[in-house]
């Protein structure tokens, strides 16, 4: 349940010793595995959202068109199930990664869960939240966030919740003949509502609030690609997560976590991918709004 600095690893990736003159070293925030998992998450999430919403808003012309674009409802169903299995896989790999890192870096669950880099909500998050509210209304300074802000933690656990709720109901709907050996038939109707509305929540939240928090807020506009490159400038780190920066400086670990930036071509490719994902996300949001507000039946 913890995201930690991929200490050492970053150093291996791009040996900070051989820094070319003129290039500013960047702080490595995400490990290669986590970056890969997030990219895969985007792909599976988008495919699940697209295929699922097509069914949910089947009464719109968009759904009709999209369904054909996706190769028919059976192909859409197949894509949806593949996406679901994929996402489950991502989730399991992440849990496995946690276990591995507990063994390698922390030794005990206690160190991992209650350390300063833990994803678990803590008292500090409450004070951060209150501080942030004050800052919003101009009654105080911006809280000095540590490695994880409270909204980042919220997003992280939202995935746990979503995987559990949507995953379990989805599985029931996938194998209704099997599950109705144990549960009554009408539960399939309940599962349908939960699955579909929870998915709407997930999709809606990710494509609006999450997008704003990470990409659209003025400091990051139009997008923040740290989750793809894993790197951010030390400046940004200092500005965004002052507490973490202080701690890194204090412990002298900052130097270990610096790496050369990617080649411009890599960054451009990443941006293209990110733009595509963002675009799709926004399109889905617009479609949902249209379907729910203007075409609702």
């Amino acid at each position: 349940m913890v995201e930690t600095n991929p200490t050492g690893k970053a150093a291996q990736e791009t040996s900070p010793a051989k820094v070319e003159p003129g290039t500013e070293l960047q702080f490595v925030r995400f490990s290669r595995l986590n970056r890969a998992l997030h990219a895969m998450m985007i792909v599976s999430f988008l495919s699940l959202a697209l295929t699922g919403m097509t069914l949910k808003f089947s009464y719109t012309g968009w759904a009709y068109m999209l369904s054909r674009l996706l190769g028919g409802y059976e192909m859409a169903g197949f894509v949806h199930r593949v996406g679901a299995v994929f996402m489950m896989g991502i989730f399991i790999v992440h849990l496995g990664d946690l276990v591995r890192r507990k063994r390698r870096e922390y030794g005990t669950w206690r160190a991992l869960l209650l350390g300063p880099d833990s994803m678990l909500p803590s008292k500090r998050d409450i004070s951060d939240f209150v501080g942030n509210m004050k800052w919003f209304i101009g009654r105080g300074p911006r809280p000095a966030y540590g490695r994880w802000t409270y909204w980042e933690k919220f997003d992280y656990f939202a995935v746990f919740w979503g995987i559990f709720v949507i995953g379990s109901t989805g599985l029931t709907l996938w194998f209704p003949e099997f599950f109705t050996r144990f549960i009554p038939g009408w539960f399939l109707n309940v599962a349908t509502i939960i699955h579909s509305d929870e998915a709407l929540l997930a999709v809606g939240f990710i494509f609006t609030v999450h997008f704003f928090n990470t990409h659209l807020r003025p400091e990051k506009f139009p997008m923040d690609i740290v989750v793809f490159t894993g790197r951010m400038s030390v400046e940004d780190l200092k500005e965004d997560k002052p507490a973490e920066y202080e701690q890194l400086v204090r412990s002298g670990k900052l130097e270990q976590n610096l790496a050369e930036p990617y080649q411009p071509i890599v960054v451009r490719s990443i941006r293209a991918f990110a733009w595509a994902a963002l675009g799709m996300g926004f399109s889905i949001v617009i479609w949902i709004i249209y379907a729910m507000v203007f075409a609702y039946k």
Partner: protein
Amino acid sequence: MEGNHTADQRQSPQRKRKAGAPGWLPRADGIALLCLAGMLLFAARARADEDNPCIVCHGEKSLTAKRGNRTVSLYVDAKKFSGSVHGSLSCTGCHADLEGKELPHEVPLARVECGRCHETEEQDVAVSLHGKAAARGDRLAPRCSSCHGAHDIIPVANPKSSVAPLKVPFVCGSCHKEGAPVARQREIHASNILENYSESMHGEGLLKKGLVVTATCASCHTAHKILPHTDGRSSIARKNIASTCTRCHAEIEAVHRKVIKGQLWEKEANVLPACVDCHQPHKARKVFYDQGMADNDCLGCHTRSDIRSSTDGRSLSVNAEELKTSRHAKTACSQCHSQVNASRRRPCETITQKVDCASCHADQGQQYLKSVHGQLFAKKDSNAPTCDECHGTHGVRGRKDSQSPSFPTNIPNLCARCHREGMKAAVRYAGTQREIIEHYSESIHGKGLLKSGLTVTATCTDCHTAHRELPMADPGSSVNPANVPATCGRCHLGIEDQFKRSIHVTQIGKTDKPLPVCNDCHTAHTIKRADTEGFKLQIMSQCGRCHEKIAETYFDTYHGKVSQLGYTKTAKCYDCHGAHDILPVTDARSHLSRENVVQTCQKCHEGATRRFAGYLTHATHHDPEKYPFLFWTFWGMTGLLVGTFVLGGVHTALWLPRALKTRRDQARLRDKKEPSSNDNGRDESNGESGAGDEPGKS
């Protein structure tokens, strides 16, 4: 055969006499009679008819006599005798030789001479074949009694008479039927007489239709003066045939103008064909003679292309070739143009009316008059189609002729002449069916007929009838909702049976609401194959037209949503409810009854169990009464969504202006520090503006 039987009985005494009776026989008879008389004297006297002493003996059924080696009855039924034409005569009136004799009398008696009273008949018989044979002593020759009977003769007018018209063929047939002694042993020129007669027009009329005025044997051959056709006096002699036939067929010359030219037929019979040359004797039927001689007379003028009506100038030309190959090729002109008068130089000049097809096609004529076409015709509407409009005139062909406009594949085009959009019938029509012909051609029926050439496919006339077309609103119409199932059921037999047992039938549905019939779901003219995508999708909205609520809730489920996307593989109304055999779930026979529902689910969901069938296929989360689980789940989820979005929204809404302001402040500060180096400026700006950073450090 009754006739045969009686004839045999009556011939026997004569035969006996002819053979010559031995001397002792009369005596034996006498002794027997005497004994009998003695035995019965008192008893008989007590009840004997005083007026008719003959009955004393002949009233006894046991009174017999030996004739040759046969015993014959001498019994006379007094009752029958008194009811016969001769009932008022005394016995001696006929048995004249007994006049004044002592009783009991000597036997045998002399033959009764019918000619004493029936002089003419006797003379006729005397010259006839029968009389001559009798005179020759032919044992097969008939006597009066052979045909008329003896003591029980009743008037010819009485149907029970042995010579009543209905019985004549049997009376004659007793000797002349195939295989009878006369037919076998005597020289008769015609064969199979009775068989042919019974199949002839005359025989059919008499024997099958009971027309007692029809010609029987005696009508042509006469009753008594039966002579061979070679005899000039015979009624069937060549020169006499015409007058014999015209006794019934009065003025038959009128339709045989060419053959007979007025009365020439009768006057110069030798140069002209006699009736029997065309209408074979005993076989007289229409089919045995050629027609058309008079027709050629008509065609002499009417094949000319420039022949026109003197009144309105329309062409009166007839295409002879067309006529020859038409259905009416064997029908004479005058049979349709019935007002012709043969005695005129131009027989057609008396024609004043149009051809009335109904004079032969009576049923069709009746139907037509009731149809909307006929009604318009009755109103003298210029748009009203008449028989010839569809069937043509001289070139009329049967509906099995592929050249005929009424041949199945030609019918849509035939009706289209008026019913195609823009044509005269379509212009008048105010109903909902548009582009009927085009739609029909694209429908399953139209494709079957026009593309696959299936002549058994439904055409316009199969549903609307050929001659009794009526608007749908008319209760008598074949396409009136009440009659539609029966109309469709003429071809779709099993379906109609299923439908009749379904909830959509008034008797079972028990509702005042209008119930659907075939065309409400299948449409009238755009009927599609039921296994095509288009139909499967269309049918859902069809059900929804009446079952509005329930159809809506269907679209809330997976089945409905996929269907709404235009895919047909998920369950549609009819997959669960059935198509034509829909019944309420409370009915055990319903596909959704407790007994059948699991099986119905298993059609698609192989592993379905009873619990699986508990899935709510029409569930809605808007009904807290009926589906509280769904209602509260939905509102719970909605609450969660709204809560989360409000939280996120407010957070964002507060953040955005603050972030913008911070950014603006930073930019201003950076502008001020412009001259200084980049790194320094950044550091300072961080130190000054980032007030937020300070508490973080502390």
